[in-house]
């Protein structure tokens, strides 16, 4: 069994074992087993990084076996510089989420932990699948655990949110399925994504394919104006669910653009690139402004996610190395930062049971340790140099300026909004005098929460101070992708 297979199936196997545990009286054992499973699955992904051959744009750690012959579908896995970091990131966030749910979840603990472990395996599957059907299966299967996570452990309006999440993303994926089948037929019976990259396609076909993929990935990212499901879902999802959703699941969509839309339909991608750029800029600026007026912390961070993911799609479609690598770095950084932001809100919510900004004030007085962490993550979210949030955004803006000064200027101006809403929220929640009895009675974070937040803090700082390991691996792949996109595929 290859490393990637292990990374996919190990968490799933642990999840299935957890499902066999019955009652909540065994919750203690369930938690420890889940933690062991998550950590082991994370450790399995580390050799991927150390064993990755730099400077090569080829797929590495490739595994290929016939899956079912009738449609020539293969169990085909591999990672390149674009997807490499997303695999350990997923496993890492999974560890954090298991720790985050430790005491908070008291109902159906085994199902909760199992859902996250299985989800983690499925998402790693999406990032490493090189066969269209395999990709689709993993991509779609992630809906089931997420649907259950939102619906079982979510807030008061969870059912509406669960349905909205499922149906919105399903609609996008179904159109993608037609595109996949069309490519299969056109390529003479192959579901191999890398073969599709070389397939000549006429202009109108490329446009149709591009928009079929766009339907799937834009909803998942989510891009403005199909982003409306995200705030609703975040508000209702449990903390762990929000963290995984923002940190990893949104990246499935962004990743799809790089793996499918751009290389398969490069002419259409160039033709419609401006549309994506405009939508991204709207996301960055308009959604940034929307974030500023939110009363609910989770909603604020959710809108901020949409804005940050706008930088990602913006970076992709300016078609230069800085922009694309910057966008990928931003994907990883946003994975750490948004997870941290949601977990911080979770910490407060567990104590006060409110997400309203107005319910807080002066938290720093009663929870100094926690406020220090929150400040770090807020700074990272605002894109302060030295934190993970800075690197990606800075690269994207630099790339954008190179491509077109005005796009760069607009994108850069959005940083101000980002800083404004993040710092304003921080000020209203943490600073100033203690405003009410709830805050007065707060207890600072315990060892478990300290551990969970410091894991993320280390990641955020490391990535901010020394981003080289992240950018090094993607150079060759990004150059290769851009070279590919620059060449017309029209027959």
């Amino acid at each position, binding site marked *: 069994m290859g490393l990637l297979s292990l990374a996919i199936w190990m968490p799933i196997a642990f999840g299935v074992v957890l*499902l066999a545990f*019955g009652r909540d009286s065994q919750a203690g054992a369930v938690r420890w087993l889940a933690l062991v499973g998550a950590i082991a699955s994370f450790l399995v992904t580390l050799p991927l990084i150390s064993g990755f051959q730099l400077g090569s744009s080829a797929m590495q750690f490739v595994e290929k076996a*016939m*899956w*079912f*012959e*009738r*449609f020539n579908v293969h169990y085909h896995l591999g990672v390149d510089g674009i997807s490499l970091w997303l695999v350990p990131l997923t496993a890492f966030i999974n560890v954090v989420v298991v720790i985050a749910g430790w005491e908070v979840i008291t109902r*159906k603990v085994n*199902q909760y932990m199992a859902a996250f472990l299985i989800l983690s395996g499925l998402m790693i599957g999406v990032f490493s699948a090189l066969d269209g*059907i395999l990709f*689709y*299966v993993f991509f*779609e*299967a992630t*809906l*089931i655990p997420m*649907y*259950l996570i939102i*619906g*079982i452990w979510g807030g008061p309006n*969870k*059912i509406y949110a*669960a*349905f909205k999440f*499922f*149906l919105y993303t*399903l*609609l996008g994926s*179904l*159109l993608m*399925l*037609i595109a996949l*089948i*069309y490519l*299969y*037929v056109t390529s003479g019976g192959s579901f191999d994504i890398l073969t599709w990259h070389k397939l000549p396609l006429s202009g109108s076909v490329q446009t149709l394919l591009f928009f079929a993929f766009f339907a799937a990935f834009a909803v998942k990212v989510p891009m403005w104006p199909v982003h409306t499901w995200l705030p609703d879902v975040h508000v209702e999802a449990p903390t762990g669910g929000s963290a995984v959703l923002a940190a990893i699941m949104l990246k499935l969509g962004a990743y799809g653009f790089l793996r499918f839309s751009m290389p398969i339909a490069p002419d259409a991608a160039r033709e419609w690139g401006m549309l994506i750029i405009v939508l991204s800029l709207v996301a960055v600026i308009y959604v940034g402004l929307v974030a500023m007026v939110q009363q609910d912390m989770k909603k604020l961070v959710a809108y901020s996610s949409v804005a940050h993911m706008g930088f990602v799609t913006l970076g992709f479609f300016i078609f230069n190395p800085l922009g694309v690598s910057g966008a990928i770095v931003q994907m990883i950084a946003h994975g750490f930062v948004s997870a941290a932001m949601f977990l911080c809100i979770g910490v407060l919510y567990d104590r006060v049971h409110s997400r309203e900004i107005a319910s807080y004030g002066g938290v720093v007085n009663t929870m100094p340790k926690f406020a220090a962490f929150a400040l770090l993550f807020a700074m990272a979210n605002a894109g302060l140099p030295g934190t993970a949030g800075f690197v990606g955004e800075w690269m994207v803006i630099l790339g954008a300026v190179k491509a077109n000064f005005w796009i760069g200027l607009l994108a850069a101006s959005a940083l101000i909004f980002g800083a404004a809403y993040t710092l304003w929220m921080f000020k209203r929640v943490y600073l100033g005098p203690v405003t009410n009895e709830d805050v007065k009675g707060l207890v600072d974070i315990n060892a478990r929460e300290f551990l969970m937040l410091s894991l993320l803090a280390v990641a955020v700082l490391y990535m901010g101070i020394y981003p080289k390991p992240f950018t090094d691996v993607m150079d060759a792949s990004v150059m290769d992708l851009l070279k590919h996109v620059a060449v017309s595929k029209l027959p």
Partner: protein
Amino acid sequence: MMDNSSWMTMYPEIVLLVMACVVTLADLFVKSTKRTATYVLTLVSLGGVALLHAVYADAGQTLYGFGRMVVSDPMGHWLKCFATIAVMVTLVYSRPYAADRDMLRGGEIFSLSLFALLGMSMMISGQNFIVIYLGLELLTLSSYALVALRRDHTQASEAAMKYFVLGAMASGFLLYGMSMMYGATGSLELSAVLKAIASGQVNHQVLVFGLVFIVAGLAFKIGAVPFHMWIPDVYQGAPTAATLMIGGAPKLAAFAILVRLLVEGLLPLAFDWQQMLALLAIGSLLMGNLAAIAQTNLKRMLAYSTISQMGFVLLGFVAGVINGETTLAANAYSSAMFYMVSYVLTTLAAFGVIMLLARQGFESEEITDLAGLNQRSPLYAGVMAICLFSMAGIPPMVGFYAKLSVLQSLVASGQGFYIGLAIFAVIMSLIGAFYYLRVVKVMYFDEPVTATTVSASLDVRLVLSTNGLLVLLLGIFPGALMALCADSIVRMLAA
């Protein structure tokens, strides 16, 4: 000529007939109200018959018997094997349910099921209009009786009545169409009919007229819109055991007569019947999915969902012949077969769970009756969820590959109209996902109404878990079943 080989082609059916008579007779001597002896004897006979079919199918020969009245080919034997297993599974699920409702008093449920299966087998291997018709009648007459088995129950009697009247009308349509075909071609035998039509000597108008009646009759039997009216009423009204008996295994036989009549007999008219089936498919997808949303009764919802699933199966038939080219036929028909087999597998488990939850005096038919099932019994909630996700076509359940293969055969045609049909089907499945998800929602997100845990005897539990697991496992490893369907269809077309 009635030589030995003739008897050999129908050997499993002969065994089945003998065992059906034996079971009927033996039941007279069984005194216990639980009918354990009859039950075991029935299961053992069915097991034997299924095994025989599997052995025949594996041999892979195509033989004709009784003067080309019946055929023994891999497709037929696999379908009969699956149908036999489906009847077995149905009986396992049904026994506790039937016992609770005093439906085991006479043991007819076992003999009727065996005779229904015999009817299905005849439909599946028929090569002659009359044989196919006789098989169909044997199946439907047994089914009418099964639906009416709770004679003191008004709803069931009403359902039986509706089923009987509409079913008789459908048989009439079918018979009328067959007689017109006979009048036009001068033969009742499928291969001779095929030859006569292919020669081009027959008046096309008469043929199309007959075809309309045959397609209408078939559409009645599988419940495609606009001939679907009986499905929701019968599914809801019949005792669940009988619902499963008419909604499960007979679907495989219905698939077989679609193939035998339309493909083996009337392939030269493909252009005409494909158009009719396309209309039926569009109507079924639209009507089935939209009407299912409004249902509060689970059995009724599943009935409408069946209508929409049949729309998908029909789409498989639509994509077979393009502009007179039969190159895609094998692909398209095997996708329809795969769809049907996986649908039956999923339906069995779904109705199995419904029967399991029902208790004496409580039918557990409303969707709200499933509330909080996950708390009461995670296993059965899991099985039901797997089935619902499969019907919605979410990977990695087997239903996804069923939809995938049908869509693939549509897109492979490369024609705008068929790709449009594929997109339409996809949008309809999105609507479908909504009502399947609603049931998952009730099971997982709602608070249970009662705290009672669900218990079942070991055999039911074992079969149901295996059934649910198969829906998942065949989704992860669909290769073998796909190859089996493709292989049987290719052999059937070659013969």
